C-alpha cells in the first residue's frame, strides 16, 4: 500500500527540458512565478500559459499529469476565487446585489485571473519536479546556495541532509509496511474503526519506526566516518554540473519568451 507513494514525482526522460541544467531550470522556475504576477493582464497570462503548455509538450509529460498536480490545491484555488469574487469592489453598477453580497464585474475578472494564475504557478513548479530527479535538484540547490556559505550558512550540511533523507524514504516506507504487518499479525486494527481509534492505533507503529530510524542514523554515521567523511571542506564530486552550449541556447530562448510576455503587458496593459 505504502509502496506506491512516490516523492517528488519524477518522470525520467531525455527531452530538452530534462537535460536542461538544473540550476538554470530552478532559477527560471522562480522567474516564471515572478512573471505570472508581473504580467497580470489577461493577454500576459494567456501567453504565459501557452509557454508552459509548449514546455510540457517538449518534455513529453502527459497533459493529464497537470490535472493530477492541480487536484490537491483545488480548494485553495476556489477559496481565493470566491474571496476575490465577493470582496473586490469595482466602479459602476454591481452585477448582482443579494442581501450583503455584491458582485462587481471587476470582481469576476479578478477571481478568474487569480484562479488561473495560481493554477499556472502550480503547473509550472510541477514541471520542475517532473523533469528533475530529486538528487539532481538537491545538487542544484547546493550549488546555488554556495555563496551563502561565506556567511557561515551550512549549505553542504543542508544538501547532505536532504539527499540522505531522499535516500532513506524508500527504506523507511518499507520498514513502516513491515511494522504495520507485524502489528496487524498481533491483532492491531489499523484500517477500521473511528478516526480517533485509527490515530491511536498508529502509535505502536510510529514508536518502533522512530527507534529503528535512530539506530539506522547511528549506524549510517559510523559508516560515513569509516569512509572518511569530514564535512564539506576539501570535497570533490564525481559528477559536476556544467553548463553546455545547449543550456545557454535554452536559457536565451526562455529569457526571450519571458521578455515578450512582459512586453505584452507594458504595450497592451488593457488586454
Amino acid at each position, binding site marked *: 500500500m505504502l509502496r506506491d507513494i512516490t516523492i517528488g514525482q519524477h518522470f525520467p526522460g531525455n527531452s530538452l527540458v530534462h537535460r536542461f541544467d538544473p540550476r538554470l531550470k530552478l532559477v527560471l522556475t522562480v522567474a516564471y512565478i515572478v512573471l505570472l504576477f508581473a504580467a497580470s493582464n489577461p493577454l500576459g497570462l494567456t501567453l504565459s500559459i501557452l509557454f508552459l503548455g509548449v514546455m510540457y509538450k517538449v518534455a513529453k509529460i502527459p497533459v493529464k499529469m497537470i490535472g493530477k498536480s492541480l487536484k490537491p490545491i483545488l480548494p485553495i484555488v476556489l477559496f481565493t476565487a470566491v474571496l476575490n469574487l465577493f470582496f473586490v469592489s469595482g466602479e459602476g453598477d454591481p452585477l448582482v446585489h443579494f442581501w450583503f453580497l455584491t458582485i462587481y464585474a471587476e470582481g469576476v475578472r479578478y477571481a478568474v485571473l487569480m484562479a488561473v494564475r495560481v493554477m499556472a504557478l502550480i503547473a509550472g513548479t510541477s514541471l520542475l519536479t517532473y523533469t528533475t530527479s*530529486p*538528487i539532481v535538484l538537491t545538487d542544484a540547490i547546493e550549488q546555488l546556495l554556495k555563496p551563502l556559505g561565506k556567511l557561515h550558512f551550512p549549505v553542504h550540511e543542508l544538501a547532505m541532509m536532504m*539527499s*540522505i533523507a*531522499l*535516500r532513506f524514504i*524508500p*527504506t523507511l516506507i*518499507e520498514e513502516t509496511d513491515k511494522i504495520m504487518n507485524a502489528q496487524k499479525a498481533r491483532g492491531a486494527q489499523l484500517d477500521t474503526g473511528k478516526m480517533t481509534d485509527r490515530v491511536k492505533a498508529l502509535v505502536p507503529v510510529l514508536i518502533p519506526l522512530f527507534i529503528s530510524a535512530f539506530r*539506522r542514523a547511528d*549506524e*549510517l554515521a*559510523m*559508516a*560515513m*566516518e*569509516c*569512509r*572518511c*567523511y*569530514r564535512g564539506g571542506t*576539501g*570535497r*570533490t*564530486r*564525481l*559528477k*559536476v554540473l556544467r553548463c553546455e552550449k545547449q543550456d545557454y541556447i535554452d536559457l536565451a530562448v526562455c529569457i526571450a519568451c519571458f521578455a515578450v510576455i512582459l512586453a505584452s503587458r507594458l504595450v497592451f496593459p488593457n488586454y
Partner: protein
Amino acid sequence: MSDTILTAENLKFRYDAEQPVYALDGVSAQVKRGEFVAVLGANGCGKSTLAKHFNAILLPESGKVYVEGMDTADEDKLYDIRQTVGMVFQNPDNQIVATVVEEDVAFALENLGVPQDEMRRRVDDSMKMAGIYEYRERAPHNLSGGQKQRVAIAGVVAMRPDCLILDEATAMLDPRGREQVMQTIHYLNRNMGITVVSITHYMEEAAQADRVLVMSKGHVVMEGTPKEVFSQTEKVRSLHLDVPQAAELRDELVKAGIPMPEGIIDTGACAQALYELLQ
C-alpha cells in the same frame, strides 16, 4: 614495511567507565599482510568492539592498537588509518549514503578530495571488482541484499585500502547473496592482496580462512588454522559455538569407533576420508 598490518597490544576497553565489565579485557592479536583471518565468538564476546578499534572508531582505554605502525590514538593519522582499513557492516541499508550506486561508491573518494577523472577510474575499477558494474545507475533500494552489500564493499575498496574488516557482513543475506559476497571477498584477498578480517557466525566461512581467532568474554581464547581450531570440537562447543558440519560428522564417527583422520573441516575432505575408509 613490516609483515604485520594490524597489531593489538594488551587492549582494554569498556563502553561504560563506571561499570567494572570490560568489553575487551587484555586482547593481544596480530594480523599479517595478505592474510584472511576469521574472528569467531558468541554474541557479546567483544569481536565487533575489537574490529572498531582497528579503524579508530573506538580508542583503547589502555593498551595500544597499531595499523601499519600508526598508533590509532594519534589524531593526525586518523584519515590515513581509515583509508588503510576499510570497514563493511552488517546491514547494507544503513551504510549506503547516495541514491545512485556509482555515487555511493564514489562517496569515500569525494570525501578524500580525489580529482574527478581519477575518481571516475577508481569507481569503475572497484565496481567491476565487486561485480556490480552493470547496476551502476540503479537506485540501491532496488537491489537485492547481496548486491547492496557488494555496493558497500565497492565503496570501501575504492579507497584502495590494504585491509578490509567485515563486521558480520553476510549475517543478513540469503545463502545466494552470502555466496556472492564471499566470492568477491576471496577474490579481493587472493588477487588484490587485500588483508581480510572477517567477523562471522558461519563456521563454513571461517573454515575457508587462513587463520581463526576465537573470542570469549573479551579475551582471545583460541587461535590457529581452521584445522587446528575446529579439531578441538569439545572446546569450541563449550564456547557456545558450532563447528563445521564435516568436523561434527568426523567427531561422531570417531566416537562410534570408526577411525577417521584428524583435521577434517570441509565437506570435500570428509567425503574423501570416508571414501578411502570404505574401499
